[in-house]
């Protein structure tokens, strides 16, 4: 299947061992492919494999059925060792209709397994996507792939005959048939899926039973049909010791916010307006009111952040969650937060832009918006998690910085992290570092007047005191107008403004962030690949590949994008080639060049999909072998394809 696999014939010649497998489920938006993928992922997590997933679906809720734009897919990569990406190409493609076949077949390598739901290959459906003849009936597929045609709808209908469900309703369970078949093929445990279905359809036990019957029918079909002579085993992965669960980025981020309420001892207040791909954080947090979390679905993006900032003024941990277009709308209020110097978390789950762009696809083109997208000099800390599970730690860290330094903090997740999932080593809740909000309780005027000066800063952190309403003697007024250093009254004084602008910048620049840790197993690499956000996976997967081929390459991940780690300049200066792959047109590369005068090479792609490991491997090799056109040049213009 793939080069790194070592198929081993076991005593049972029917079972083949694999190190890793990539499966892609593809079907119509209405076929339930995301659910199917999610369930297979859960089974795989329960089994103990390492895994990484890539859901890919259209923005339309029900795109016209059977069409190419309506195709929805879910790719899952699982292995018996730690893996970093959802995989470039599937080993197994499950295509539920002709559109799914047409949209995905190019990604299936020669020799790959193709499982097709033949029921949907009607003349009408074929014509709809431009097939002149049925590709299942000529040799075009058989020659290249191991093709299994399965009449999934018919078989599901047959299995559900007894249930009394209508033909149409019965056929809707065909995705569970497919899941059952694949679960059998890969020896996945099935209890959790049956339990899940019973819970999901608790109010419709008939549907729960139907889905379970279909799932079992798929399983049984694999077992009894000679067509599938081989099954595969992928042994559990030997990950670091600990307790693991499967988690998506949005869930991890939500849990991080709940945990931040614990670490800071503050009630969490989320003000949010629904937007893809961030809405799931609003959904998730609204389930956790027992933790003192308040969720406010606002009338618009501006109101969402406004309410969060108002709650912060009152002493809550104010949070707003959104995607790029929402960040644009919130910019003025975030700027107010910078002027007020109040803690505020702004979560940006990036998607394809500009404007509405590609709502369900990933991109990381909001970096410069996060850095500079406000009027005036309005710096704020930025943290970018690098894996789905890391979204938890990023949220906890963002809250700690926001509270300690009294500042809005931006977290840059993206669509790939938000919806992608991986095994996550569950942290020990008791070991999370507490953060003292340190509310002001006493007047602080240095002149002994007994007044309260809201802009008298802490000498170490440069943070101002957070005095919340209800504290007697500390009544004060804050606002967007420039404030006098210390005293905090309105000030139009030119020198004061200059000082305040520099103080706000110095406060952010002085935030303590951990030094970069370079991964260079050989210790003598000449080339450094630098990444941020979700490119972590593909960059490091590609680095492993080129190292296996005998090359030396170092990688490093910038998690704190503002301020950047103190040793960044030194790290950049230690390599003759620095390459920065990004899903934008070179935004981090631009910042690194500007700040460190280092000729950072940029490799960019904005296709709405993560980089493939193979794709990056080729780019790395080009640079390592000097065959890249830019490898020997002094400068690049930053935006090569």
């Amino acid at each position, binding site marked *: 299947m793939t080069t790194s696999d070592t198929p081993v014939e076991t005593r049972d010649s029917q079972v083949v061992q694999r190190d890793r497998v990539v499966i892609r489920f593809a079907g119509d938006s209405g076929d339930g492919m995301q659910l199917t993928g999610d369930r297979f992922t859960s089974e795989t997590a329960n089994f103990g494999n390492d895994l990484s997933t890539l859901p890919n679906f259209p923005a339309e809720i029900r795109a016209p059925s059977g069409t190419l734009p309506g195709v929805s897919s879910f790719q899952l990569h699982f292995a018996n060792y730690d893996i970093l990406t959802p995989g470039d190409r599937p080993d197994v493609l499950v295509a539920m209709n002709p559109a799914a076949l047409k949209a995905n077949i190019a990604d299936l390598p020669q020799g790959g397994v193709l499982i097709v739901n033949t029921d949907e290959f009607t003349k009408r459906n074929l014509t709809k996507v431009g097939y002149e003849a049925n590709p299942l009936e000529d040799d075009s597929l058989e020659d290249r792939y191991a093709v299994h045609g399965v009449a999934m709808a018919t078989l599901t209908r047959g299995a559900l005959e007894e249930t009394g469900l209508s033909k149409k309703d019965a056929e809707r369970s065909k995705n569970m048939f497919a899941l059952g078949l694949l679960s059998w093929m890969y020896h996945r445990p099935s209890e959790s899926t049956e339990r899940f279905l019973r819970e999901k359809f608790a109010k419709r036990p008939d549907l729960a039973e139907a889905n379970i019957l279909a799932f079992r029918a798929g399983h049984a079909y694999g077992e009894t049909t000679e067509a599938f002579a081989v099954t595969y085993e992928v042994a559990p992965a030997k990950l670091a*010791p600990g307790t693991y669960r499967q988690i998506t980025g949005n869930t991890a981020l939500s*849990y991080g916010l709940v945990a931040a309420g614990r670490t800071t001892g503050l009630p969490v*207040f989320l003000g949010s307006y629904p937007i893809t791909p961030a809405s799931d954080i609003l959904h998730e947090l609204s389930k956790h009111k027992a933790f003192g979390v308040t969720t406010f679905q606002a009338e618009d993006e501006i109101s969402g952040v*406004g309410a969060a*900032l*108002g709650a912060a003024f009152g002493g809550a941990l104010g949070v707003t969650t959104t995607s790029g277009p929402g960040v644009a709308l919130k910019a003025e209020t975030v700027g107010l937060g910078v002027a007020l110097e109040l803690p505020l978390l702004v979560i940006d789950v990036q998607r394809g832009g500009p404007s509405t762009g590609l709502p369900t696809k990933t991109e990381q083109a909001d970096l410069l918006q996060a850095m500079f997208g406000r009027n005036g000099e309005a710096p704020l800390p930025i943290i970018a998690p690098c894996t789905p599970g890391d979204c938890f730690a990023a949220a906890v860290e963002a809250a700690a910085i926001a509270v300690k330094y009294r500042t809005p903090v931006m977290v840059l997740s993206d669509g790939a992290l938000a919806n992608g999932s991986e095994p996550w080593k569950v942290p020990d809740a008791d070991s999370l570092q507490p953060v003292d909000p340190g509310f002001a309780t006493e007047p602080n005027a240095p002149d002994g007047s007994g007044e309260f000066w809201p802009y008298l800063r802490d000498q170490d952190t440069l943070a101002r005191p957070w005095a919340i309403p209800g504290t007697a003697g*500390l009544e004060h007024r804050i606002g967007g107008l420039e404030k006098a250093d210390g005293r905090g009254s309105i000030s139009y004084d030119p020198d004061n403004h200059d000082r305040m602008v520099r103080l706000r910048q110095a406060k952010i620049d002085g935030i303590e962030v951990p030094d970069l840790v370079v991964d260079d197993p050989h210790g003598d690499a000449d080339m450094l690949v630098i990444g941020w956000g979700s490119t972590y996976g593909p960059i490091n997967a590609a680095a492993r590949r080129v190292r296996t081929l005998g090359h030396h390459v170092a990688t490093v991940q910038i998690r704190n994008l503002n301020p950047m780690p103190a040793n960044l300049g030194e790290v950049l200066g230690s390599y003759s080639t620095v390459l920065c792959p990004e899903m934008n047109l070179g935004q981090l590369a631009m910042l690194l060049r500007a700040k460190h005068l280092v000729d950072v090479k940029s490799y960019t792609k904005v296709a709405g999909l993560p980089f493939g490991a193979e794709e990056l491997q080729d780019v790395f090799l080009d640079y390592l072998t000097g065959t890249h056109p830019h490898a020997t040049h002094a400068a690049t213009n930053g935006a090569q394809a």
Partner: protein
Amino acid sequence: MTATDLGLPSIGGLDGVPTTEDKQTAKDFTSDQEVRWCPGCGDYAVLAAVRQFLPTLGIKRENTVFVSGIGCSSRFPYYLNTYGMHSIHGRAPTIATGLATSRPDLSVWVVTGDGDALSIGGNHLIHALRRNVNLKILLFNNRIYGLTKGQYSPTSEVGKVTKSTPMGSLDHPFNPISLALGAEATFVGRALDSDRKSLTSVLGAAAAHRGSALVEIFQDCPIFNDGSFDVLRKGENENRLIPVTHGEPIRFGAEGEDGLGSHAVVQKGFGLEVVEAASVDPSQIVVHDGGDHELAFALSRLSDQDLTHTVTGIFRQVERTTYDDAARAQVQQAKDAANGEADLQKLLDGRDTWTIVA
């Protein structure tokens, strides 16, 4: 009028806000900031009234918060020695919503103007009103943009000649009271900046009201819209100003023989009209009912906005669950269901974990 007058439940707008026995004065509520409105600005009168009025509430000064947007009147919080935030244009209701929802122990006030509340912040205003968050919104309506030096506003009369409309403005103005009623506001009142007595009485009722209260204050801007409400102040005002009180017949104008006004409001079709009181049978005269939505709407449209008939007082006051009370109740309900202490480790673990041993 207070909530009790309407037979509403005893939960008032200030319940949950700590009270004080200490005697407070207007001076206590005055900050050290020099007031910087233009001489003669109606804002001065409102500020004086509010400084006089706040101590009468008997709540702790530190539990009082004023949030404003942008505009001349939005400087208001700086001049009060309470907690305050001078925020950004149009967004004060959003900030106040977050604050009031997370802090039931605060009396939260929003100060806004016709541009701030009805133009750039129109969306936030109507949603705050429909949600019925426990906040008091003082809408200073001077029918002009003052801070940006004299452009017409969304309450300016059609044909207004201003810097931005030298040939006259074209767009039809909002009727702020009708708008608030249409947005399902549970308390809608109006007062004139210079009429301290009725302004204070409306503010008192607003403070005691549990939910969003919108008080429109007609405020003169002598610099850019001088004398815009003068017809309501001068001698001939009697037949223009129609103060209404819940439970009382709507009579106004010079006192007649029965001690009530010379004019009255009666029903006409689906609306209302003004007649001479003597010309109708007293039983025909409308008795004001703050719980009657249709009446409130009709009163808000008794005449065009040319001030021919201008109702003041409380148009509407009804009880409806507030958003913030309900939101806190849900949190409490969830906490109770989890017996007080939700288990973070259990949440993180989820349902399906597996353990890898060393």
